[in-house]
């Protein structure tokens, strides 16, 4: 699959072409950038750093009906994800795409989650490189990621200034290339080499880092370490760090009934909430924010890599930038290394 050239003037037409699918792009709402389904290509806001809420909500919606039922009728009407149709997420960042490839491992592990996997199958990810790191707190390069990373993406658009280098990466990417053939030109020969030197340059602009070596093995030995109390002292117990994390995937189930008609829905849950793992008896094995913070870090940096061989963090920096009390995962990890 050879790289192509997509001139920036043609992006509007490309989005028009793609609007025959369910097209999701970054959108600006006041000063907040979010991923939303768009009807008009003009709504797309592509000159952004990174979105506040990651695009994981497209494949793993915050609230998702699994089936519907009628009281008194044993028949369940299951959600058919197929009806949502082919979806294109256009313009997401490499870290968020890589996060999806990490979460895929969980949802296709001992139980294959039909809703998530079907939606993933229907979704094509067209990513855009970060020429400038979107945030001072980016640290993707510490975790096998890159501002030009390809993991999880079907197409990578390398921002070359006046045009994009269109790189199809998967079969879905190749189909995307066919769909958009009339808007693509042959890439100039120097572009591919220039892209790789640009990648090195972009990596160099990322200032924060962590060496994750050995953390997964060390974390269990720090179970009772006083550091957990100290790092969670200021924690408010809100859901910002988890809801805005592109790899967090905990969910809760709720039944909702309205005049005899009901649905079972799953919705995001956060390990930082006080009811998380609260038992019906009133007992909670994670009774305070200390245990909950320990769980958040351990899940990402110990349990997940032990099970799936990959750290459940992509270094997007959202949890650091948006934490109301500046709890900083890099600082916690440094303390883990030093402890």
């Amino acid at each position: 699959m050879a790289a192509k050239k997509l001139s920036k003037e043609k992006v509007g037409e490309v989005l028009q072409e793609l609007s025959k699918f369910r097209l999701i792009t970054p959108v600006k709402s006041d000063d907040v950038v979010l991923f939303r389904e768009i009807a008009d290509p003009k709504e797309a806001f592509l000159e952004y750093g990174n979105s506040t809420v990651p695009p994981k909500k497209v494949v793993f919606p915050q609230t998702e009906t699994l089936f519907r039922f009628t009281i008194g009728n044993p028949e369940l009407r299951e959600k058919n994800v197929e009806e949502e149709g082919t979806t294109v997420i256009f313009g997401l960042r490499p870290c968020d795409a890589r996060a999806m490839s990490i979460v895929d491992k969980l949802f296709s592990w001992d139980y294959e989650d039909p809703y998530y996997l079907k939606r993933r199958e229907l979704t094509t990810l067209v990513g855009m490189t970060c020429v400038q790191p979107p945030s001072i707190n980016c640290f993707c390069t510490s975790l096998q990621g890159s501002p030009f990373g390809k993991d999880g993406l079907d197409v990578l658009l390398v921002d070359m200034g006046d045009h994009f280098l269109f790189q199809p990466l998967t079969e879905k990417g190749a189909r995307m290339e066919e769909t958009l053939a009339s808007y693509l030109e042959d890439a100039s020969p120097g572009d591919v080499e220039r892209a790789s030197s640009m990648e090195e340059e972009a990596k160099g602009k990322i200032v924060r880092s962590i060496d994750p070596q050995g953390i997964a093995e060390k974390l269990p030995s720090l179970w009772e370490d006083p550091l957990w109390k100290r790092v969670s002292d200021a924690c408010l117990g809100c859901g910002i760090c988890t809801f805005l994390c592109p790899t967090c995937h905990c969910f809760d189930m709720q039944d909702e009934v309205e005049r005899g008609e009901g649905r079972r829905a799953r919705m995001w849950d956060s390990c930082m909430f006080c009811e998380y793992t609260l038992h019906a008896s009133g007992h909670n094995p994670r009774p305070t924010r200390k245990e909950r913070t320990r769980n958040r870090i351990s899940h990402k940096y110990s349990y997940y890599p032990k099970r799936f061989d990959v750290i459940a963090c992509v270094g997007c920096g959202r949890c650091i930038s948006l934490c109301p009390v500046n709890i900083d995962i890099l600082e916690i990890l440094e303390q883990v290394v030093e402890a």
Partner: protein
Amino acid sequence: MAEATQTDFQPNIVAFLCNWCSYAGADLAGTSRTQYPSNVRVIRVMCSGRVNPMFVVNALQEGADGVLVSGCHPGDCHYMQGNYYARRRFKLMRNFLEYLGIEPERVRMSWVSASEGAKWKEVIEEVVEGVKAVGPMNKFQRRQLNW
């Protein structure tokens, strides 16, 4: 056509009536065979002070086009002061909902005593007229979501 729909619109009004005055007042209207609009669905509570302002919000979510809270006249509360508390709560809630864009015609409060069957009729007529004028609630009710 749109106008015709407007006049055909029959609103759902949920009314929270206190046991001692307003419920008895509505009952008196019934036993006196007073005719009044049938749009109102009555929920009897012990006191207007028992009505949590979230009842109003939940009723609007669940499909009510308007909500009425009715209690004893000031000074007449069976529990001495429940209606005074209710008065503060609903004044603030009504203003607040108006600030969000929910027409104040949808959130009403009245004092109806046990002997005021005729006043009950007037109150209901006014509430129903008010809600009819602003049309069906279409802002934040729980919709049958498309999956």
